[in-house]
């Protein structure tokens, strides 16, 4: 009697264990920063689940800063953890993740349909390693009302900006009013601070991962920012200023020109802002004789190399990076689209009118050096920018320091 029951139980269990996979959904886990409005992404994912029977997607939210997430993901991926299938990555990370073998390549998508900078940012060794989630760039914010008052047009060059700032601050006679605010603290944004004038002189820092450093251009770039502080156009303690400090001070009405990311726009029009309705955005000024350039931001979708569901994950990434989702996120979450034509799209501009102005800036965006050792590059550049702005090194010394360190890192 016992034997029969046991046999029956064993048979049942075996049948169930074979049937189970067929009945169960594939469960994908996607890692999103809690900063990037996971609740809106959830809606996009719900639509995907409806379109794709047999797939369920759960969201895991991670740290709030790019740094904290990087730390977390670095620890987790170093240990080859397979619990995450899709990762959201800061635009500076795909190269590192691909080189470390943490992401799988995503083939088959034509990167030229996206904004131009993304092709470079997401291609490593000729392979596509991530697809864009949403875009971001640094803008020149300015006080429309003050510029109008003094009859000044948005400056096209840094010299013009300096003159304009001086005219306005002299005229306003407000000791709290800063001419220009930018980021001098040793944060990731300081890398952009260095690169903006450097790129504007037509120079690239890396070429396919190899260093192509122009010493003079670097000195000019560092000297430019230092001159703002020395001439009183920017604060003396500009080396202490982080991204949010710029935003807060601009929002409080204490800044004429500001270099900042797209997030500052919505806040400047918000109820707590003293400058709502008085803000304009323009391309960043160029160096004399050069072109305007801005720093590419935004985030990318990557597929974890340790995921047990490679195909499903790749399909999900392709979906999340599609024009439909980009439009959805632009309208519902105010995230900058990754496709140029969406900026002019009627529905999008109805939801976020300023995107029409934003396009001309985002078009000039360039990606920061695409190299696996980006963290070291970043560390070098941002600490040097900070040291120069603090007056600890001269622009000449700073440029030499960056050159020698980058030579060791990017051989």
């Amino acid at each position: 009697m016992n034997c029969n029951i046991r046999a029956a139980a064993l048979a049942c269990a075996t049948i169930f264990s074979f049937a189970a996979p067929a009945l169960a959904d594939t469960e994908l886990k996607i890692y999103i920063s809690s900063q990037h409005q996971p609740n809106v992404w959830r809606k996009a994912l719900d639509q995907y689940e409806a379109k794709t029977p047999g797939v369920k997607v759960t969201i895991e939210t991670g740290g709030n800063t790019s740094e904290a997430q990087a730390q977390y993901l670095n620890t987790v991926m170093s240990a080859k953890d397979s619990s995450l299938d899709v990762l959201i990555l800061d635009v500076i990370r795909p190269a590192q993740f691909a080189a470390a073998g943490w992401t799988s390549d995503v083939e088959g998508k034509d990167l030229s349909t996206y904004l131009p900078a993304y092709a470079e940012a997401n291609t490593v060794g000729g392979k596509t390693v991530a697809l864009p989630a949403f875009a971001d760039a640094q803008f020149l914010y300015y006080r429309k009302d003050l510029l109008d008052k003094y009859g000044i047009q948005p400056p096209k060059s840094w010299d013009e900006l300096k003159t304009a700032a001086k005219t306005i601050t002299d005229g306003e006679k407000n000791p709290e009013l800063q001419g220009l605010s930018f980021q001098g603290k040793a944060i990731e944004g300081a890398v952009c601070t260095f690169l903006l004038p450097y790129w504007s002189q037509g120079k690239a820092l890396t070429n396919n991962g190899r260093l192509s450093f122009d010493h003079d251009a670097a000195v000019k770039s560092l000297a430019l920012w230092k001159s703002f502080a020395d001439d009183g156009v920017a604060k003396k303690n500009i080396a202490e200023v982080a991204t949010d400090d710029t935003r807060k001070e601009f929002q409080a009405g204490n800044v004429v020109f500001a270099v900042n990311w797209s997030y500052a726009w919505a806040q400047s029009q918000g109820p707590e802002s003293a400058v709502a309705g008085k803000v304009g955005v323009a391309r960043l000024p160029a160096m004399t004789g050069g072109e305007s350039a801005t720093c590419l931001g935004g985030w990318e979708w990557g597929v974890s190399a340790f995921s047990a569901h490679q195909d499903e994950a790749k399909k999900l990434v392709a979906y999340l990076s599609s024009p439909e989702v980009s439009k959805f996120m632009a309208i519902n979450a105010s995230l900058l689209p990754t496709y140029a034509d969406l900026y002019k799209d009627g529905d999008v501009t109805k939801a976020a009118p300023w995107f029409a102005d934003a396009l001309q800036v985002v078009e000039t965006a360039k990606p920061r050096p695409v190299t696996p050792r980006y963290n070291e590059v970043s560390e070098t550049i941002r600490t040097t920018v900070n040291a120069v702005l603090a007056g600890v090194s001269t622009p000449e010394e700073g440029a030499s320091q960056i050159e020698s360190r980058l030579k060791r890192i990017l051989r």
Partner: protein
Amino acid sequence: MTTTTASGPGSFLSGKPLRAIAAIILLVNGMFPALWILFTSLKTEGELTAKPITWFPHAPTLQNYMQAFSDQPLHLFLFNSFMVALLSTVLTLLVSVLAAYALARLNLKHRGLILAAIIAVSTFPLVTLLVPLFEIMRTLNLLNTWTALVLPYTVLSLPVCTLMLVSFFEGIPRDLENAAMIDGCTRLGALFKVVVPLCAPGVFTAGILAFVNAWDEFLLALSFNSNPQLRTLPVGIQLYQGEFAFPWPVISAALVVGIVPVAVLIVIFQERVVSGLTAGGIKG
């Protein structure tokens, strides 16, 4: 309350005005940052960038506290931190009491070596062991559990607590244990029924030490317990900041909420803690 020695090094300062000055210095030194955070938590963000800076909030508001609880599950962070700290305290005390007893009472040949080894263990900062520890926790399937944190936190406090308890145990005359054992107690029974109660102040001190160490830890908690349901306080507080934004008033409110439990524990146990450190000087 314990009376302090009125003679000795402090006595030439025992005049009233000097006592008042000393009191002010002590209170300012100890409480100033905590009070500043308290005031900041009652300010609005605009007030923070006002110049000259204000000390007391102009229009105190509890808005930040409400936001602190609504922006993030602060109560969950508190709960997790509390449980993890409590469990590690209990485990630390248990393990160090046993180990301290062995070192204090059983005449071991290599006692000095073992003590040195225990101290040496604390020379390894957990920061540097992050990656290997993560792998261990993953292999043991302990990620996103309280256990993953309780074990390292216990090790964190083990050396100090053990050393402290060793000196306490050595201060208790053996006759007391012997008396208990003559009365029919076992050796371990004597330990828990006689020695530990007598060393209660020391045990409390070690307990608070372990609790505070566990409460404060950030890096491991960040890496091991990523599940939002299991986040501890230091990790949770980091979540109030955005990629760029750093809302000081809300974060201050969260900090105040984070410090209050520990402060309460301290006030309750402060008598025991200081007398615990004092009683360690019991001379045979």
